[in-house]
């Protein structure tokens, strides 16, 4: 399973990548593998605020649906609209073209409670 070192991880299997005060968010390779073929996503509205750990998106396979939780608090500034017509990007490239949205972070402290790659790898093995 691919778990890049430069990202932070939530126990609910989202990753977060900080670029200035912006944060890219998606789901992990492990999560996409468990969900299997993703057929649909529901993305949040641009401009909407979310608290850390609040459900903010939905990802669906043929026979199941999962909530995606916001790894850090913030305001949505961009969503990856390409996923609406090509949800398979999440399976193919979960850390790149398969990102869900970009947040403007409201509390830097939130990052402290996220895991690093090593911790996350351990958590999914355990």
């Amino acid at each position, binding site marked *: 399973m691919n778990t890049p070192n430069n990202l932070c991880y939530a126990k609910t299997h989202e990753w977060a990548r900080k670029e200035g005060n912006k944060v890219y968010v998606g789901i992990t390779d492990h999560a996409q593998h468990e969900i299997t073929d993703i*057929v*649909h996503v*529901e993305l949040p*509205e641009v401009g909407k605020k979310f608290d850390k750990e609040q459900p903010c998106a939905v990802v*669906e*396979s*043929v*026979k*199941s*649906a999962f909530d995606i939780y916001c790894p850090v608090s913030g305001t949505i500034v961009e969503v990856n609209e390409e996923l609406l017509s090509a949800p398979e990007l999440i399976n193919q490239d979960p850390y790149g073209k398969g990102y869900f949205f970009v947040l403007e972070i409201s509390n830097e402290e939130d990052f402290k409670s996220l895991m690093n790659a090593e911790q996350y790898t351990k958590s999914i093995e355990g």
Partner: protein
Amino acid sequence: MNYIPVSDKDKKEMFESIGVKDTQELLSLQIPETLRVKKLNLDKGMSEQELISLFKKYAHKNKSNLACFRGAGIYDHFVPSIVDEIIGRSEFWTAYTPYQAEASQGTLQAIFEYQSVMCELTGMECSNASMYDGATAVAEAILLAIRASRKNKVIISNALNPEYISVVETYTKNLNIEIVKIDVDSKTGALNKDALNNVLDEKVAAVVVQSPNFFGTVEDMQELSKASKDKKALFVAVVNPVSLGLLKTPGEYGADIAVGEGQVFGNQMYLGGSTFGFMVVTKALEWKMPGRIVGQTVDKDGKRGFVLTLQSREQHIRREKATSNICTNAALNSFAACVYAAYLGSQGIKELAETNISKTRYAFEKIKNIKGFVPLFENSVFFNEFVFKTDKNIDKINEELMKENILGPLDLGKTDAKYKNCIMFAVTEKRTKQEIDKLAEILTRV
């Protein structure tokens, strides 16, 4: 009578295999004796022959096969023989919801064809497999609009069928949804744009308009749809499939959602209980739609086949977060509509609408010329129905008509004091010239 194909000998062997001596012992493994009921206090069972006699007796207590000039949501259209033949095939009516796709291609393709027919008829892009009826389809359309827009105020026309308004109120009352009603113009019987604009603002999730409306009047849907879109509200059209052979389609005037009652296509009246609702939406709303949806795909050899799809919207997967709780729908009734539409074809659908409006106009002109009857609305364009004001005794009119096996107009004053002395007639292609003339004759002499 019973339908149990198990002999006493079989039963004995089954008990042996289970390891109990009788039913009593078997049930005692599961249910505490104290909870058991002694017996059901129902009549003794009947033979098939007795049952048929009993139900013939019930049938005779009804006044049936009337020449029906009553509508208000359920209409007496002719149902061709092929409809009964096809939906009467036990391979269709004894099948279950097509969850095992490979063993249900008949039902699945039939639903796909139904969805396609509804899309063609309404000019919309996506149809579900059906709802319970027109009323619940309107209510579900409102819930869909609320979900999609993330706003909670809805404007509905007061000329929606009152049964629909009542169901909308039931469906929305515990959900923090604000319903605003607007009246039709008392002169024309249609909504006017200014009345809508008075209450329309950007907080409105959807505007719901029926056309032909409850009174039979055709609305200017193009104008109302545009007014709604100008304020970023979704436009929900409630339409009658029969009228769409002639009238502008929801797709043509840019509706986001179209719903309605499907009984008029291929289903008998049955006390208003053989119905289905349809729902068609734009592509943008397909993942938000309630109910089952069938899609085309291929099997592992690349051969075309059909499956239930977009299922992660539904209750069996999403549970409390589903787009609706609907599971069983009205598949067989919607299938009847599909066969009916297929039988008519595009040409027959047009002829059907033209015949309906022609006969309605013929009846209207006849009644207009009778002393004591005045049209309630001026210059109104109507489809299957129209309203007259009369100073005659309405109960007496209907009594006299019933003597001639005619089901007369609906007395609107009985349910809404605002329409005292107003009667509404419905005329379909099934009413003959002779029946219409007879109606006029009786109205003249009462």
